[in-house]
């Protein structure tokens, strides 16, 4: 299960994820972000409530990063140990700005 909470102030958008970002839930996030990143110059992805992420979730995060590379910046915050390990072994740590 995945809960997605969006909080927008002007051109800054925070997306907070709660639950699991896996094969079943990743399409949900993909759908949520489609179109809503337009005009956003600062995107914050808050993973405080995210238990785990599989490659299906990495795909969506990668596409978010690619969109934001063109139109602004993206930061990933509150990354837990398991998810940090996954970012490290996949090379995502070098791609993402993890604060």
């Amino acid at each position, binding site marked *: 299960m995945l809960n997605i909470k969006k909080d927008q102030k002007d051109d800054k958008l925070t997306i907070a994820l709660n639950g*699991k970002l*896996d*094969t*079943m839930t990743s399409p949900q996030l993909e759908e949520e972000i489609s179109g809503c990143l337009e005009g956003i110059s600062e995107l914050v992805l808050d993973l405080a409530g995210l*238990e*785990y*992420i*599989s*490659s*299906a979730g*990495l*795909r969506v995060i*990668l596409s978010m*990063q*690619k969109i934001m*590379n063109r139109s602004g910046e993206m930061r990933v915050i509150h990354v837990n*140990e*398991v998810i940090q*390990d*996954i970012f490290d*072994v*996949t*090379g995502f740590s*070098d*791609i993402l700005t993890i604060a």
Partner: protein
Amino acid sequence: MPELRVQALTANIAEITDFIDSHLEEADCPLKAQTQIDIAVDEICSNISFYAYGPEKGDILVNYDYDPDTRLCTITFSDSGIPFDPLAVKEPDTTVPVEERDIGGMGIFLVRKTMDQVSYEYKDGMNHLTIQKKI
């Protein structure tokens, strides 16, 4: 040895995860190892669901085994679909820039990085992928 058979559909991955988790909890598995195993279940079962049977329907058979002396957990995923060795897939290049990144093969790569041992066998008309992790 506990065993679960479900239809190979992504909608059934949660049932497989619950089955595995209930046994891992019985074995007092640390949360980190359990999470890594859950991710492996997602990667392996989504691959089988998407690719093993083409347009036809088939099953995923999951076998769980745990040795309390060595704390080694062994899980085998079997399907009777197209013969496919995921371990023969070239590892992704994790050093290429983000814009050029092709994410194919990332799932099984993650499994290999987080499990102690991953092995594949094609036997009696079935694919058998086994993961092992000391918990």
